């Protein structure tokens, strides 16, 4: 019995490395190979946190940009853009714009409304250069016009016109959708369209009445 205890005592120092091995063996199951796989969980969480940080940065930037915007200015810009390409077919503007574009160099002999909502002008033009200049001016109007056809024969010409229009699309705020970049975009358009002519469809009088001039009167 006494010699047995002595043997056990002599081998006892091996208990320490054995325990370390057992500890590592079991924890290996927990850390790497087992169902919990803590390291895998850490990796997944790290990716999730990184993605959330990116989202937060994007939202932070969006909130900052929105905070700097002036709603009244934006609404004014929408108004300007809708005057350039209206939300409804303003065929009535075609005649006034045509007359202004024609000026004194081209005489408008007649016009007819096209079935699709456009206008066909009958013009008296001296030569091709005059017609070319008229076409250039017709494409520099607000609302924007599109020349659909041109037919010149001798000193008379027919020009088919349509006014640009597109119905307003419903837009909604989406919190996690990035904002479009608009820095200077509208200003550039305003600068580009500054020389374009606008129709004189009505002249406000001092009495508050609106006088609509005859488009063919001199």
């Amino acid at each position, binding site marked *: 019995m006494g010699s047995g205890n002595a*043997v056990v005592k*002599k*081998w006892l*120092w*091996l208990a*320490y*490395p054995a325990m*370390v091995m057992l*500890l*590592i063996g079991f924890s290996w199951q927990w*850390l790497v190979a087992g169902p919990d796989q*803590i*390291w895998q969980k850490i990796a997944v*969480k*790290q990716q*999730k*946190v990184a993605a*959330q*940080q990116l*989202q*937060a940065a994007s*939202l*932070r930037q*969006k*909130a900052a940009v*929105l905070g700097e*915007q002036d*709603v009244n200015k934006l*609404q004014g*810009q*929408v108004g300007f*853009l809708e005057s350039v*390409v209206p939300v409804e077919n303003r065929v009535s503007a075609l005649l006034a714009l045509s007359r202004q574009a024609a000026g004194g160099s081209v005489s408008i002999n007649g016009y007819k409304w096209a079935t699709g909502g456009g206008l066909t002008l009958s013009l008296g033009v001296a030569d*091709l*250069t005059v*017609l*070319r200049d008229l*076409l250039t001016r017709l*494409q520099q109007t607000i609302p*924007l016009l*599109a*020349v*659909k*056809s*041109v*037919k*010149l024969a*001798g000193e008379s010409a027919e020009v088919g016109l349509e006014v*640009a229009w597109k119905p*307003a699309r419903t*837009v*909604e*705020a*989406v*919190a996690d959708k990035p*904002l*479009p970049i*608009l820095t200077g975009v*509208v200003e550039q*358009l305003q600068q580009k369209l500054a020389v374009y002519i606008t129709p004189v469809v009505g002249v406000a009088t001092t009495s508050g009445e609106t006088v609509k001039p005859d488009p063919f009167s001199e």
Partner: protein
Amino acid sequence: MINLLPDTKNIITNWMRYKGVVGVISSFVLGGYILVAAGSAGWWLFLTRQDESVKKEIASLTQQISDLKATETAVRAVDERVGVVNSFLTGRADPAKIMAGFLAQVIDGVKISGWSWKSDKNVTVATIEAADLQVIETFRQKIKGSKIINLTRSKEGLWVAEMQL
């Protein structure tokens, strides 16, 4: 006489030589294990706190953005109409440019008596008159890609050509 019993004393003595080395290695392994385990647990705790903090920030920012809903709608409306205007400006055909290119090619001896263009077909036809057929041919050669689609002679003796530009 042969002794078949194991020499326990000698075996123990032999193993005792490794006691020190095994102890040191075990301590290093245990220390490393504790460091890795503590590091993993600490990292997990850090990530969990960060996750909560970012979640709170996202919720707060989303609320801020939601409060500015009218502004965002206006920004998107501006963007939508800018797209409409740009699309129209870039998409429309420009007959004045076509005509300007054509007029730049005019030569003496040719009279342009007609010109027609349709945006949907994108075809330009010009009617030209000249006394000499060679002048018409010279004119055609000057306008790249043009072709004569009809050639007649008028009562006045002029050559009348319809050219597709």
